[in-house]
């Protein structure tokens, strides 16, 4: 029993650190190979306080956590700001990890490589279990909040994240800090469980163990790293004499997983009834192998080696299959009772919240003005005067805009004015610079010359995120959705600006602030999905949608940002005539319902001619024509740009 407790405590401590790493590496996609250093900082800080100053465990751990967070800011801010290549970033963290270890080996305060022996044993299975549960709950809460979604979005597509107004640096630093906090906690617990601390514990091997856990368990998951680390710790313990091969196992598993199953065991999924059989199979395999090992030893004396191993293998296989089947059965039996139980709990919970809210003002739902504004735009028909009346001042005014990439002039002295409520088309042959104009307006590229003014403000000096939140959102020519999120999550992520609970509340998830806000975010997102007719796909993973629907989802996501100017980049690309006809209807609908100004890039001429009140034609970065659709259709320069022939020749033939 004592032995089992020891294994459990050990595993739990490492699982806490791995969950921390999962928040950073698993969800931002940035690899840290120096997380052992955060454990070291947390562990040493806590150990020094209990060892020299006689503090009790909890305050010492708290200081350790704070120390780890501070160190993570010092290392994280400059390295993340530099936007390194992902492998360079990983190496920088590795260098940091080694530097911390070597520093500890030489510091007198921490008694150099001897470390601190004989720390009081303050951590045991019980309080470690409590800390593990707290860690799991906090991580889960964080990931299910606006803050967590921002980080997940950055991990899935940093460009798209920035283009929906999510700042990269602060969110990445935040996720590293949270991750360091849990690693620090784990380090503190470790020191007080094994009752000593030495620099040698926090070597690269430990960092690699955590990384291996996150990679093998699966990116974008909390369940995965828990299972993987538990296996890494438990399996070698079960096979006595395999302890030396433990690290070989991590290494081999790392190679196999990254080569053949980059998704890991539970990539982008959490434990639910669908993958319960998988979990049981894994457990079955572990138990099966353990029993098989002792069986093989037992029988090899009487039956000879080969038959003994055969029997053992058969037993292991049988156990694996049996447990997998048991998992399937359990999932089947438990699904409906669990569902109704959950519903019961949910309604009881809502009832309590409702009573609380009725009783006291401080529990009332907060007002979310931005969300209300959005709902009004989506649900109510247009209340404002339509476009024709307000044609005095342009909303967007582009003057002699230029963009050079080295010697290539992609946009050359381009001018365009867009008025309130207009639907303007931007057309031109492939490579003529249309998308570059969008990229310049949205701040993705810095301009080489000229000005872009939006409602009197100069956009060329604003950050992309500020431009988006200022009311200009866009879609992408080559779809950029958050591909592992569900359709609904894609839209709720874009509503990040409308929610107003704090980070602390996100961790605790107060029902009367966070849950209530989340509910309303979901409702709003559903309204947006209804607008683009995707409500039935709300729970589908985004990249499993057909192409045309993904384009619609991009439009819904762009609308969630409450734009006043919407830029659509080839929304009908790859659609058949019927689909593009539906798209025309959709764009008309949102144009009226949301009272938008729309700028549209499109190659399907029927779409452009049908929709746009005014069209600008661009070729080789220069504007060659502008006017009403009929005008454009007969413009000789436009015909030449598209057909590549002199007009005389066309007329002559």
């Amino acid at each position, binding site marked *: 029993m004592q032995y089992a407790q020891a294994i459990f405590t050990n595993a739990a401590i490492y699982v806490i650190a791995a969950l921390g790493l999962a928040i950073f590496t698993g969800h931002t996609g940035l690899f840290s190979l120096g997380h052992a250093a955060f454990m070291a900082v947390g562990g040493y800080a806590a150990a020094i306080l209990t060892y020299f100053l006689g503090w009790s465990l909890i305050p010492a751990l708290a200081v350790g956590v704070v120390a780890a967070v501070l160190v993570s800011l010092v290392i994280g801010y400059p390295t993340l700001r530099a936007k390194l290549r992902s492998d360079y970033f990983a190496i920088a963290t590795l*260098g940091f990890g080694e*530097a911390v270890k*070597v520093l500890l080996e030489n510091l007198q305060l921490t008694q150099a490589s001897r470390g601190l022996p004989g720390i009081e044993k303050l951590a045991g299975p019980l309080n470690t279990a409590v800390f593990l549960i707290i860690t799991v709950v906090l991580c889960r809460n964080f990931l299910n909040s606006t803050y967590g979604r921002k980080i997940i979005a950055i991990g899935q597509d940093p460009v798209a994240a920035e283009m929906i107004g999510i700042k990269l640096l602060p969110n990445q630093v935040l996720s590293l800090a949270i991750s360091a906090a849990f690693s620090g906690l784990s380090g503190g617990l470790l020191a007080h469980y094994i009752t000593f601390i030495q620099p040698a514990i926090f070597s690269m091997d430990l960092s690699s163990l955590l990384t291996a856990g996150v990679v093998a368990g699966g990116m974008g998951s909390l369940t995965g790293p828990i299972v993987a680390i538990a296996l890494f710790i438990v399996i070698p313990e079960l096979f006595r004499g395999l302890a030396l091969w433990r*690290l*070989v196992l991590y*290494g081999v*598993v790392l190679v196999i997983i990254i080569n053949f199953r980059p998704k890991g065991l539970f990539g982008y999924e959490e434990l639910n009834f669908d993958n319960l059989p998988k979990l049981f199979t894994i457990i079955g395999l572990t138990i099966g192998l353990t029993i098989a090992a002792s069986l093989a030893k037992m029988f090899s004396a009487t039956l000879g080696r080969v038959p003994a191993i055969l029997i053992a293998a058969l037993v292991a296989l049988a156990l694996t299959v049996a447990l997998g089947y048991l998992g399937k059965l359990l999932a089947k039996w438990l699904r409906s009772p669990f569902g109704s139980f959950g519903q019961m709990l949910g309604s009881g919970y809502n009832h309590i919240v409702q009573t609380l809210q009725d009783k006291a003002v401080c529990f009332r739902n907060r007002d979310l003005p931005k969300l209300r504004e959005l709902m009004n735009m989506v649900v109510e028909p247009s209340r404002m005067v339509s476009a024709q009346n307000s044609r005095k001042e342009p909303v967007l005014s582009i003057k002699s805009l230029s963009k050079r990439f080295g010697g290539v002039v992609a946009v050359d002295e381009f001018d365009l004015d867009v008025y309130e409520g207009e639907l303007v088309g931007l057309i031109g042959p492939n490579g003529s610079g249309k998308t570059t104009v969008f990229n310049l307006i949205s701040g993705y590229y810095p301009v080489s010359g000229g000005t872009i003014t939006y409602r009197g403000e100069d956009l060329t000096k604003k950050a992309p995120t500020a431009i988006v939140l200022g009311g200009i959102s866009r879609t992408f020519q080559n779809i950029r959705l958050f591909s592992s999120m569900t359709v609904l999550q894609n839209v709720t992520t874009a509503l990040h600006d409308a929610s107003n609970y704090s980070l602390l509340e996100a961790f605790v998830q107060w029902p009367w602030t966070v849950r209530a806000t989340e509910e309303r975010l979901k409702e709003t997102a559903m309204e947006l999905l209804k607008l683009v007719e995707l409500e039935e796909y709300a729970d589908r993973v985004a990249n499993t949608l057909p192409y045309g629907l993904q384009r619609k989802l991009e439009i819904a996501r762009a609308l969630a940002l409450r734009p006043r100017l919407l830029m659509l980049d080839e929304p009908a690309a790859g659609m058949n005539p019927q689909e593009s006809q539906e798209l025309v209807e959709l764009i008309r609908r949102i144009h009226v319902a949301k009272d938008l100004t729309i700028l549209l890039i499109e190659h399907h001429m029927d779409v452009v001619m049908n929709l746009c009140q005014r069209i600008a034609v661009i070729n080789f970065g220069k504007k060659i024509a502008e006017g009403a659709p009929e005008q454009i259709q007969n413009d000789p320069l436009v015909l030449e740009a598209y057909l590549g022939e002199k007009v005389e020749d066309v007329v002559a033939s």
Partner: protein
Amino acid sequence: MIFQTIITGLSIGSIYALMAVGYSLVFSVLNFSNFAHGAVITLGAYIAWALMVSVFKMSFFPALLLSMLGAGIIAFFVERIAYSTLRHRRAPSLFLMISAMGVAIALQNVLYATVGANLYALPPIFTQDTFSIGAATISRMDIFAFVFSVIAIALLTIVLNYTKVGTAIRAASYDSEMVSVLGVNLDVLVAVLFLLAGSLGGMAGVFMGIKYMVYPSMGWITNKAYIGAVIGGLGSLPGAIVGGILLGLLESLVSVTVIGSVHLSTFRDVFSFGILVLLLVFRPTGLFGRHVEEKL
């Protein structure tokens, strides 16, 4: 005193350079940091130990050649097993690096689990190991390692510049896809690449083994060589050489520096890893590197 420091710096620096060249060769074509190189170097040293001490009693030169060959073959197999699938799938370079880490952990710990954690000495090449010039005492081994490293790197430069395979490797470092379209078998080219890098690593391993000891975690020192490669600019051969030697010199200078009553020697490794982090943040291309955007 300073003369002595420079000699020590040059000799360790030349071994760094020998290892750094292996990193840079692989990086120049495959665009990832091959962290398994340290394990290959370690295995090279163990092969020499087996040949010279534990199994056979070979003399130095045949053992050196066989160790180089052995390390080269191991590097080749590492590529086959751990990288070729990813390479064919065009996985991001980060994946290759993680795979390399896995190999490094596995190989190093196979040594722990089989040969054990003992330290073994390789026989010295020279009976009387030191001589003096003026006030400086110089180890013959240091000079030998320096000269040999220089010869090996010179040979590599000749191979790269004057042979067909070398030309193909250099071309592939600019655009491996184009090279394969032009009819070069990329798999063969990569195999040659790993053989070259591995055998140079094997040589470095043998020198390290003679200078220090042979033990499973001796591959850790290759982190320093890697820093040398980053200083010079990953993917650049002259960069790897200059960077490796520069780091060796800097380290030996730091080791003898005393500020107030603090001997900086204890913080030598902190200094090296500090350089690594700072360089990656402020000048990831190092001294000679060209900036390669990540292949995604």
